[in-house]
């Protein structure tokens, strides 16, 4: 009776052919060398490790996210999942816990000023009142004014002027403060 040739696992834990100890080693390697992003492919498995701070505007807490993409697609998929590009953001911004997010209620194009020649409604550091217009989102030729739902200081602006935004996308990070006198 022929013996099957078996690879000796030797105490390593695995998920779908990915050696977790190996992934941990890669994470330490990245920290050690100050790497933001790391990707490699071997034996039909592709691993991509990316710190959240690698793509956000002002990252507070870097988190390593491991994506394991088998080269052989699962039967239900017609091809390996293609990376999709949502309108403007590459990743969720890492948000400090005291910031209140103003999110887009509609799909459209984000403008920081009422017209191309005019000054921006707000900038980083601007103090705003509840109901104050922060930006315009243009949708179907209509200019929608987006108002702040609280008083405070504009700490973050997550979208660049003229970029598209989707429903729920963070636009501004506001830190609560007392009313203007």
């Amino acid at each position, binding site marked *: 009776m022929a013996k099957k040739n078996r690879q000796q696992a030797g105490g390593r834990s695995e998920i779908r052919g990915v050696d977790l100890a190996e992934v941990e080693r890669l994470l330490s390697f990245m920290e050690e060398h100050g790497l933001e992003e790391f990707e490699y492919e071997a034996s039909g498995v592709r691993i991509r490790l990316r710190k959240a701070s690698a793509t956000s505007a002002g990252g507070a807490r870097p988190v390593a996210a491991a994506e394991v993409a088998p080269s052989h697609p699962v*039967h239900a998929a017609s091809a390996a999942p293609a990376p999709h590009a*949502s309108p403007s953001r590459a990743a969720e911004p890492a948000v400090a816990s005291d910031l209140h997010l103003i999110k887009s209620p509609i799909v459209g194009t984000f403008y920081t000023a009422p017209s191309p020649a005019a000054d921006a409604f707000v900038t980083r550091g601007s103090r705003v009142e509840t109901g104050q217009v922060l930006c315009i989102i243009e949708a179907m030729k209509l200019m929608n004014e987006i108002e702040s739902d609280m008083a405070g200081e504009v700490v973050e602006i997550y979208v660049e002027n003229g970029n598209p935004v989707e*429903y729920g996308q963070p636009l501004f990070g506001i830190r609560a403060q007392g009313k203007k006198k």
Partner: protein
Amino acid sequence: MFRKILVANRGEIALRVLSACHELGISTVAIYSEADRHALHVRFADEAICIGPARSSESYLNIPQVISAAEVANVDAIHPGYGFLSENANFAEVCEASHITFIGPSPAMIRMMGEKDRARVEMGAAGLPIIPGSDGTVPDEDAAKRAAAEIGLPVMIKAAEGGGGRGMRIVRTKRELIPAFLTARAEAEQAFGSPNVYMEKLIERPRHIEFQVMGDRHGSVIHLGERECSIQRRHQKLLEESPSPALDPATRERIGRQVVDALRKVGYSNAGTVEFLRDHSGNLYFIEMNARVQVEHPVTEMVTQVDIVKTQIRVAAGERLEDAVGSFEARGHAIECRINAEDPDTFVPSPGRITTFRVPGGPGIRVDTAAYADAVIPPYYDSLVAKLIAHGRDRAEAIARMKCALAGFVVEGIKTTIPLHQRILADPDFVAGKFDTHFLEHLAPVEAK
């Protein structure tokens, strides 16, 4: 040909449209609600845009959001799938006004076929046999009494803006007439926004037979054969097949020709399905037309080898039918089982997380699904989990393959209608092709093992 298409839908039909686009080298944009963030159509599209919260009215049915997404992504065309905005003439018009091609019939055709009483009158005038019924809507109680007397009881009262089997009432006695008329109007107003109803002679124990059609923008119309969809529960189709065991070649030829002639007359383009009821004498009567691609389109695709969704895109881009479709032949027999996330006996919806999902394969088996292991079937949308289609050289082989496929389709974590389909396929009347739309009501109850 279009460069980029936005798919204004979700679930398995969104995946279906994405496939067709990718085959044609067209790049794709998916839209999704927050509940569908991890859905496959989002992951398989080239771009994806979140357009709203879970509720359909605020997302998939939200025309400004959908159009805005199309503009922001700079698409050439929108494919609406089925359901949602696919038969919304207003949406089709907004697309046109925004210089985005709506992949489907014209707004005028959608409107005509959407007003069911008007479609009946127009198709009758264009030469299709229609069920004896009221001339347009029945506006008040006196008109209802007159119409019922003319047509002869029993009658069916139907919502003019309804469809998909909803907003219908049967009246067998004079005494039931006015209460049924008033309730039907109230229900129609609630469900479809218009209280208008019309009346038709009730065809007892009918068979539901529908013809798949396709028109181009140059005046040509063809049909791709018929499907039988008599296996229904509360007017919702559960199992469909092609060809119909009840149609002889002469009738198929004759009705097919009448359908094509009628649609050419009214100037129909793109995909559609013309629905008939067949009475026990074998007469076919037009009941309504669905101006869109249908859930059960794969059944026709398996028999004819014509890709209906790709053809929709190609004719919308201006191609002629002879180029987009060419010649084809109907071969063999196909059956589709709609696998829903429902209790197979009580039909109570069963949303939740799928823990195991093993899909069958083998010769003649096709599965259209957006489900996968660890996916969550949300409670906000329809309960369709997968469409399982089996094709064979004849009906017997299709049935045999379907039985094996159902036995090999493992879904755990939610309840599905798979056991119900197994019972249907084991039923001798079904196997003999002897059934009508009341079949499911009379299906033998589950036997304790």
